[in-house]
């Protein structure tokens, strides 16, 4: 026999977790199977909904105003504008105090670690004081041992982007590290646990860091750090530093590995646990068996558990295995494909047509993914659903460039909640 559930969600990123939560909301028994850690750890933890139109207009201060004009096939067009709103409400309820931005329809502009600003709809509380659309003067602090973020250079770049506040940058040594190649989690752990750091006469890491930064604050009302300020106790770390510095403290979201991404993941997995979703991690779904009787249905999928095939069966399936980065979409020299169900992935036959010459041009590869119907069922080459009981959500859905539009998290939330709700409802109707 197989391990049985009502809804099986494949993929444990933002879309998969949202789908599982939305399905569980409908009352069924839901399992989420995730092969590896999701790409949440690559992402900034910001919830972008739509920052630019597909033709590049923006930054959009109101993402919702632009959604009705999106082209046919765009995931937001598939689910409809209301579903995007509902998905954000759903997220806001899950995130609670951990995220801000729900009080307005407008996008915020957030300082990025490259010194640019970007539009986003929801941001972690840790970043709330780091908006570029906030006019208070800021100090950015970088660390000598983290070459990714050069605070003085970022400050200079922000000024050339015309931000409405004065911003300075300073580079300091992070107290208490023995090696120059300590991992980001080490910085966070030192602060989380407020470990004694010998370099500063045995004071705690927070006090030592504040003492290092304090002379540079010079009247700035907010101080930004790269996103390493604690993990489990991030709020406490930030509050402690703010007290000591006499200024608000915020994090500038960083590239991979991203602690804000890790924290979002933890938040989602706590919610899954609270919702009674069964979570199986660390093992990939590698194959499926079609239903012997009803054509066009998936009977079960095969999970590869370190070389052993373990069957999992459900009534409804949600595929949220990610795009090219998450490897829900793969490619070789000849073709682009979806590896589990071999769903249709439209792409030019010649791989030299998968890209354009400008790195930031209109990149075809960025839009690779599955075409879906309005219920988010993947469609085959003739436009018919691949399977009656399979839905897709998140970056595996094609037809949009999340990087250019700044729409990745929003699409994952919208498609995840629509797919999960649809799957859960279908189980109930059965």
């Amino acid at each position: 026999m197989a391990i049985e559930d009502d809804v099986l969600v494949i993929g444990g990123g933002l879309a998969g977790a949202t789908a599982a939560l939305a399905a569980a909301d409908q009352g069924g028994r839901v399992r989420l199977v995730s092969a590896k850690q999701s790409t949440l750890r690559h992402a900034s933890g910001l919830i972008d909904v739509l920052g630019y139109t597909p033709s590049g207009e923006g930054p959009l201060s109101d993402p919702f105003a632009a959604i009705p004009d999106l082209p046919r096939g765009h995931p937001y067009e598939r689910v409809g504008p209301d579903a995007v709103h509902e998905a954000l409400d759903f997220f806001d309820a899950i995130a609670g105090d951990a995220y801000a931005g729900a009080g307005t329809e407008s996008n915020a502009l957030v300082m990025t670690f490259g010194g640019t600003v970007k539009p986003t709809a929801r941001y972690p509380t840790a970043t709330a004081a780091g908006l570029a659309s906030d006019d208070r003067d800021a100090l950015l602090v970088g660390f000598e041992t983290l070459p990714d973020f050069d605070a003085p250079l970022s400050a200079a770049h922000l000024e050339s982007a015309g931000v409405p506040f004065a911003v300075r940058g300073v580079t300091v040594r992070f107290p208490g590290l023995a090696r120059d190649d300590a991992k980001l989690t080490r910085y966070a752990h030192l602060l989380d646990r407020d470990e004694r750091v010998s370099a500063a006469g045995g004071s705690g890491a927070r006090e030592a860091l504040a003492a290092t930064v304090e002379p540079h604050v010079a009247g700035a009302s907010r101080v930004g750090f790269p996103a390493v300020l604690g993990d489990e106790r991030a709020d406490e770390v930030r509050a402690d530093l703010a007290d000591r510095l006499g200024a608000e403290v915020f994090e500038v979201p960083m590239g991979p590995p991203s602690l804000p991404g890790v924290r979002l993941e933890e938040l989602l997995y706590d919610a899954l646990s609270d919702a009674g979703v069964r979570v199986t991690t660390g093992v990939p779904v590698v194959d499926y068996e079609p239903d012997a009787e009803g054509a066009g249905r998936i009977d079960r999928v095969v999970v590869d558990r370190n070389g052993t095939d373990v069957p999992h069966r459900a009534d409804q399936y949600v595929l949220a295995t990610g795009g090219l980065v998450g490897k829900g979409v793969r490619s070789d020299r000849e073709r682009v494909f979806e590896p589990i169900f071999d769903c249709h992935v439209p792409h030019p036959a010649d791989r030299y047509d998968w890209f354009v010459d400008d790195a930031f041009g209109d990149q075809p590869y960025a839009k690779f993914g599955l075409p879906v119907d309005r219920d988010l069922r993947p469609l085959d080459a003739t436009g018919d659903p691949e399977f009656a009981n399979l839905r897709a959500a998140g970056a595996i859905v094609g037809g949009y460039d999340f990087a250019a539009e700044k729409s990745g998290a929003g699409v994952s939330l919208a498609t995840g909640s629509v797919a999960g709700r649809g799957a859960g409802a279908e189980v109930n109707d059965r």
Partner: protein
Amino acid sequence: MARDTEVLVLGGGSTGCGIARDLAMRGLEVTLVERGTLTDGTTGRMHGLLHSGGRYAVSDQASATECIEENEILREIAGHCVEMTGGLFVQRPEDPDDYFREKLAGCEACGIPARVLSGAQAREIEPYLAADVKRAIEVPDGAVDPFRLCVANAIDAESHGARIETRAEVIDLLRDGDDIYGVEVRHGSGPGTRTSEATGTTEEITAEYVVNATGAWAGRIGAMADLEIEVRPSKGVMTIMNVRQVDTVINRCRPKGDADIVVPHETTAILGTTDEEVSDPDDYPEEQWEVDQMIDTLSELVPILAEARTIRSFWGVRPLYEPPGTGTTDPTDITRDFFLLDHADRDGVSGMSSIVGGKFTTYRAMAEEISDHVCEALGVSTSCTTADEPLPGSENLAVLERGMDDFGLRSPIARRSTQRLGSRSREVLETDEPNPVVCECEGVTRAEIQDAVSQTGADLNAVRIRTRASMGNCQGGFCCGPMANELHPTSDEETVHDALDELFQERWKGQRHALWGEQLSQAMLTYALHATTMNRDRDPANATAEIDFGAFDDGRAESNRIDPAGRTP
């Protein structure tokens, strides 16, 4: 009439830099001009093979003999640029026995140490060779870093008083009747360092003698003085693998053909190559079939290549030349020998010689010959010392190897850094400042980046070729930002910004030829990082229209805003 310099060398490739070093060491006053950065032409676009001569042992024994001689010299004077990998000429069952015997005999005739290995012995050396390879000839091929070697020549020339001027494009030859007495250059745009003149300006540089060492571009220089130089540029593709599948140079032992060599190069393996004549060395098609041919044909020798990850491909143009009237149609049949064209003898125009043809391994011998010629023309009698004097970084290498120091780095990083820096390692890597790794793929630390920046200024592509930073599997996705950060605050924000964009686009260019599988996933991750997380694609600093910051959420209208310090904002 007073001249600016005694000798003016055109072209900053291996030949030009070699000539500059040679003449400077003989005490001459030398200026070298290069339109891009050093090695931008053919030198930076070769597979990095240090020939044993084995490849020419059947077809061109004179070249083969010269190769083995120079091979031995370079191992002595440029130890930190050379890795003595050894090489194999591998015979597959379908490859001709006759040729294998000829190759072996040819090696013997040219003084190239060679021995025959069974298929099993060859696979013991290189486990990823195909299971059915028949046998192999082992020769002392090596791998050489052309960037490092060329730069070392330039640095040494400078230390002997030469002026090395990059991003200075020759726009005209100065000619007085039948005498060429200098060039006019335009100092280039872009963030590269310029030792004297500002961007966009022109400068006349006069000289007693001009050496045209522009290789495949020699015809263009000649045309400026109505001289006809029949260069036959021929393009070849090279495909770079992400890791070294082999640690020995693998040659296919058959008469001739494309896609017959794999060269282990630093952390990568380079597959080569093709040979196809082009009309314009700056503009020729780079095509998919060429890349596919490298992978498909070479995986007959090393099957794992079929599934392995390539990180980019690049093309180079050989500066082939044959004397007028030879009429060879297939470029693979054109000699690899070099030619010294004295335009006084040849065309009745004095003051300039051109050097064409030739190959990287023998760059020093070519430089010696043309330097002798120049000295003769100028009546200078000092002789060449380049075969005996080690290049900077190669002094006392044996001492360095014995006392291998970790400089506080993890040992594989220390080893790779030391291999790149040679005897300069201590000077560069010993620092009291934090020295984090900036490029993780290649193990390049801040100290090494800073050393390169001090040589090149705000030109990240020049930093790249000196350090290998951004040449690993992420192709700069993660490290080009941190590399740019190292330029600040010496360079201002705008310069850093431009340098970053330039490196980012350059890295993308070569990667386009490797966009499938892992590298496509990597490219998407890079795109997401730079466009999504950093919004570099829509950077408001580049935009013409100003942003209305007031129209956006300022965080204070929030009902659910949490102030971590418990204060109300």
